[in-house]
């Protein structure tokens, strides 16, 4: 589960991680009041809140440039906020359709510290799971404010990592290692050790999946601040964090994915025109792959899970058909334990209930498969049967491209 920057910073503040003071609102009527709570001696930052990166370099569909803007005065901040709220922001990560900005976050602008070469004094800090060792890893770099993957590729010596032994947690010497590696001294060194320690505490206690601060900044006044915050949580652990669940913003999620999850379906929309309905995540992924292999383009990932009841299949058809790009459907079920005939009856009922007009290819395999195929054949519906995944994929690609 992802949260907004303003929510992440509120949690940071709770754990004692230094952030610039800020106020968020969903209403333009509150803009002035929000701004009055912020010290604007260095100016203001106006930040669009969406669950996607690249906001600063994004463009609104109304032509306004920049989802994150500096404003020297309160009036200018108001103006920026008016241009952003309720409008759609397109960034490198949102896709062409963009995201509607429904929350504006005002913060005090920081006085950026400078390095001897004139660059802003920005760092990078993140905590996530290191899959290779099954341990949390803290990643830090002297090169903040840029894409960390580029830094890792071009100058790997500027990336520092500390792995945390979960049996004992983060040790003080590890926080010191990072602070030394980043080149901090004196008061800033102490601030860095403290910030790393508190941020790790937040990551661990709240079951975060990833915490990223980019940039971590040194101000001219000599303060270390988390200028941006990107946080996601482990969905499997949400049951023990009702306070985190309360931060969920359904506006940021795909309505079809939400609808799918109500039926125990895992659905992700893609750009293609051949929808698929599959049981099992690995089989669902490889069904998308085989559609592409034979020259088609998958419209979605859809895993109905191990079960695939008639209700689920019907719900899945409705969700699939809600995508206007879909020109055909491929159903691929390996009914290992379930009775294929029950699944076949479910498909027939779903086709009838939804009045499906598009080409449909069904590949059934497993328990009682002959009876299942007979049910499909005698349904009076034009359902094409596929003998293998390859056969089924070739058939649906041919039907859709006809």
């Amino acid at each position, binding site marked *: 589960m992802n949260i907004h920057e303003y929510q992440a910073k509120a949690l940071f503040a709770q754990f004692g991680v230094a952030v610039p003071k800020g106020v968020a609102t969903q209403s333009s009527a509150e803009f002035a009041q929000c701004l009055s709570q912020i010290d604007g001696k260095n100016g203001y930052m106006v930040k669009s809140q969406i669950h996607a990166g690249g906001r600063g370099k994004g463009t609104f569909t109304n032509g306004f440039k920049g989802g994150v803007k500096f404003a020297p005065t309160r009036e200018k901040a108001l103006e920026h906020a008016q241009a952003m709220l309720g409008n759609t922001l397109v960034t490198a990560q949102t896709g062409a359709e963009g995201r509607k900005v429904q929350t504006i976050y005002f913060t005090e602008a920081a006085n950026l510290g400078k390095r001897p070469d004139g660059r802003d004094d920005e760092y990078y800090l993140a905590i996530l799971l290191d*899959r290779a060792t099954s341990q949390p890893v803290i990643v830090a770099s002297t090169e903040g404010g840029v894409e960390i993957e580029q830094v890792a590729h071009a100058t790997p010596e500027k990336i520092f990592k500390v792995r945390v032994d979960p049996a004992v947690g983060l040790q003080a010497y590890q926080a010191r290692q990072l602070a030394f590696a980043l080149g901090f001294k004196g008061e800033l060194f102490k601030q860095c050790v403290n910030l790393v320690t508190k941020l790790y505490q937040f990551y661990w206690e709240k079951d975060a999946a990833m915490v990223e601060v980019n940039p971590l900044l040194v101000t001219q006044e000599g303060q270390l601040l988390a200028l941006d915050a990107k946080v996601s949580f*482990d969905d499997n652990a949400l049951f023990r964090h009702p306070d985190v669940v309360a931060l969920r913003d359904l506006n940021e999620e795909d309505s079809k994915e939400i609808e799918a999850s109500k039926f125990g379906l895992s659905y992700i929309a893609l750009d293609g025109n051949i929808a698929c309905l599959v049981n099992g995540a*690995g089989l669902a992924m490889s069904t998308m792959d085989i559609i592409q*292999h034979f020259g088609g383009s998958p419209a979605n990932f859809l*895993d109905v899970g191990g079960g695939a009841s008639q209700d689920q299949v019907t719900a899945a058809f409705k969700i699939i058909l809600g995508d206007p790009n879909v020109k055909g459907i491929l159903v691929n079920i390996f009914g290992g334990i379930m009775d294929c005939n029950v699944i076949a009856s479910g498909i027939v009922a779903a086709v009838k209930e939804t009045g499906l007009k598009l080409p449909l290819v069904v590949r059934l395999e*497993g328990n009682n498969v002959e009876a299942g195929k007979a049910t499909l054949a005698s349904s009076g519906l034009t359902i094409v049967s596929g003998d293998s995944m390859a056969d089924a994929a070739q058939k649906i690609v041919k039907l859709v491209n006809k």
Partner: protein
Amino acid sequence: MSILVKEDTRILVQGITGDFGARHARLSIDYGSQVVAGVTPGKGGQVFEHNGKKVPIFNTVAEAAKQTGATVSAIFVPPPFAADAILECVDADLDLAVAITEGIPVKDMIRAKRAMQGKRTRLIGPNCPGLVTPGRGDKSYGGCRIGIAPGYIHRRGKVGVVSRSGTLTYEAVWQLTCRNQGQSTCVGIGGDPVNGTSHLDVIKLFNEDPETEAIIMIGEIGGSAEVEAARWIKAHCKKPVAGFIAGATAPAGRRMGHAGAVIGGSEDTAAAKIKIFHECGISVAATPSDMADALLRIWKG
């Protein structure tokens, strides 16, 4: 031989009184597997009955193992309690804990895995279909089925199968069976980012197993476990290996059903993994329909 479990391996089921655990305990009994005990805290002394077979239920894993000689546990415990169930197997010194449970918090698994270091118990999973060593009876009856895989699709034979995904494993197994190629053992290691047994761990076991003559390794996007296994195969594996990677069409940053199936960096993509498979001499299946044939090409020529 086979790996990890044999036909006579004695199995206990944690969560045998829940719907999911009970259903699959019954299916394992029907397959002829040696389900000898159930564990549900507070229900010790009760009996799980199926088709005339009476399986005693115990309060603790240690007690169940001591009384029945069970060496392997199938875990069907709900996610909030599953890591605890795994560690109870470690405490009872079982050979193997197979965690079927889907949805265990990552932090719980990080801690459990750390606590298992240096202990004798091996973990398979979590979020996995389990493992099957097929039997020699009709439709592989009499095998050892731990977890949720359909038993009847297997045949006893010489191919080892290892995969993160359930239904994709069944797909590979069924392709083999339809081509009269049986399996030594089929292991589903699970789709979570933190798991007990890796592709490489299983490949090493297959490499040492005299019955296993060839191997199918099925992977997916996310992480580097398949790459690590492929490099080891190139350097050490004596047996022909075919491979498949799912997720060539998956967009970056989106988790594809499995918690572990998400492209984080350029190394995590299907294309990068497939390239390394080729470099390591693995026969790559172009599509999931081609898994058994990809193996036969490199194995039987």
